[in-house]
């Protein structure tokens, strides 16, 4: 016999843990910080809280945010992908080259995405099947993909995108319902990833691999396939971002995406992805990317010398990790 008092008590218990769980999520605190900074900046600068600046900021963080979604998956498995910036460069150059040769837009996009996926497949194979360290493998790929971008482009810039140039440029530079297309891409990707992470077995397995790889293996989780999938995903997001940014800029050089890996990793980490594995969210990736861009933009608006930007972003990364550590310690 279950009486109602027990049930309400049970519900209250669950309710309080739900609230506690929410409060413990870094993404929530970053969202609060984001809102506070926005309000402050709104008071400090007249040009901050304008529609124009808002769409400028969202567009800027969308390219980073798209890759941060893929990076979050990698970080949850206790991995890292340092090659995303270079993969983005290679993918963009390949896409630009194919389009410049007069191929239709589908061919250009396919070539761009396939070159990115090829890099991801190499990363994933070496990490999942040969058990090499993700840091070293993707550091190698950082160098290889950048070099391939140079080889493929022969150090030329591509700015003519063949018969479908209008569509291609519109895809990256256009907007729908007042929201830029890259931002739509980010939102859709984040929603898909968030859904996969929470509602599919794949999502549970990604968390399990990062949380306790040995346990995952013993219980029959396909650890190798899971690792392979996250590096493919990470590269795919780099490819998607590359194609959109090339369309937006209307030109591509082999320097595309240079040092982006730092901002991408910073976004994921600030958004709550734990480099020790097992923790991270799609929402966090988006909000982390947004915070970095808002800080950059805010400093610019406040008239701070842009040379200082890197220092401020670096401080935020360290603060995010530090807060995480302090919270963990208090829990224990």
């Amino acid at each position: 016999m279950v009486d109602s008092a027990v049930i309400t008590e049970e519900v209250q218990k669950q309710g309080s843990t739900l609230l506690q769980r929410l409060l413990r999520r870094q993404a929530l605190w970053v969202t609060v910080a984001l809102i506070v900074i926005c309000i402050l900046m709104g008071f400090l600068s007249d040009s901050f809280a304008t529609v124009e600046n808002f769409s400028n900021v969202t567009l800027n963080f969308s390219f980073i945010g798209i890759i941060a979604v893929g990076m979050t998956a990698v970080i949850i498995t206790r991995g890292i992908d340092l090659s995303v910036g270079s993969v983005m460069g290679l993918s963009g150059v390949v896409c630009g080259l194919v389009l410049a040769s007069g191929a239709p837009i589908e061919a250009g996009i396919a070539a761009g995405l396939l070159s990115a996926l090829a890099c991801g497949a190499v990363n994933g194979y070496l990490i999942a099947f040969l058990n090499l360290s993700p840091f070293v493998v993707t550091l190698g790929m950082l160098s290889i993909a950048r070099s391939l971008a140079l080889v493929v482009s022969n150090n030329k810039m591509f700015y003519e995108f063949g018969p479908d140039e209008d569509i291609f440029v519109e895809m990256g530079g256009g907007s729908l319902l007042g929201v830029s297309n890259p931002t739509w891409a980010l939102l859709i990707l984040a929603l898909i990833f968030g859904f996969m992470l929470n509602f599919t077995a794949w999502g549970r397995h990604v968390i399990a691999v990062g949380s306790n790889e040995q346990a995952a293996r013993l219980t029959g989780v396909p650890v190798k396939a899971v690792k392979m999938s996250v590096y493919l995903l990470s590269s795919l997001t780099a490819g998607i971002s590359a194609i959109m940014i090339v369309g937006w800029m209307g030109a591509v050089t082999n320097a595309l995406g240079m040092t982006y890996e730092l901002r991408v990793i910073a976004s994921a980490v600030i958004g709550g992805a734990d480099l020790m594995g097992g923790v991270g969210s799609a929402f966090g990736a988006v909000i982390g990317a947004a915070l970095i861009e808002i800080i950059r933009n805010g400093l610019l608006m406040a008239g701070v010398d842009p040379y200082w930007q890197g220092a401020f972003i670096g401080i935020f990364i360290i603060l995010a990790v530090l807060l995480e550590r302090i919270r963990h310690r208090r829990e224990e």
Partner: protein
Amino acid sequence: MSTETHQEDCALGEPFLELRCIHKHFGAIQAVKSVSFTISPGEVIGLMGDNGAGKSTLVNIMAGNYPPSGGEIYMEGKRVHFSKPVHARKNGIEVVYQDLALCDHLSAAHNVFLGQELKKGFGPFRILDSETMYTVAGDLFRELKSETRPRDLVREMSGGQRQAVAIARTRLNSARLILMDEPTAAISVRQVSEVMELIKRLQHDGIAVLLISHRMPDVFAVSERIIVLRRGQIVADKPIACSSPEEVTGLITGAIERA
């Protein structure tokens, strides 16, 4: 079922699992030497031995984690090869590992179902059926008389609750043999008696248990038969009624050569 007195008679029936001349070496180190024994359905066997006697190696071989270097494994008379833990599980062997093999960042229920999640929908649109998993896991915890809540993260749990999660996992499939590696090593005295009760309940359901433990009282409380390993070899395999803690201690240390 639990009061069978003549273990020798039991052995005449077809054993559930039979190990024949199992060897395992790691490089030059001979971890397990020519080990043979049988496990009958519903039998509780205590496996004892000093550190490095080969207990864990033997468990890992039966669980499909290590292939044996030599020897054969038979299940109900048929030769089997376990090259992955999943193979052993499919054949009705479940393991509760010493470190419990849990993922801290997943809920209790998701840990119970890890690697064999319940899904709903069809085709590529199959999503997790978390509600059912919470319900089933909750029922299992209640069966185990544990206060574990299925939605809680394992990270926030006590040793006993974690133990319950690891044991509940073995109950999902129709396990016929459960290997328990030091199930009472890291839990409180009250929880130990819970685990002992649980083993008796498993036995009552016709599930065989191989209990690997350092704790003499635990082994003597629930086992019908005892196997002692020393330096990778079996030095005793006899009904527990015919043995005593003193004898077992002697066998473990080598004071008694063989019994």
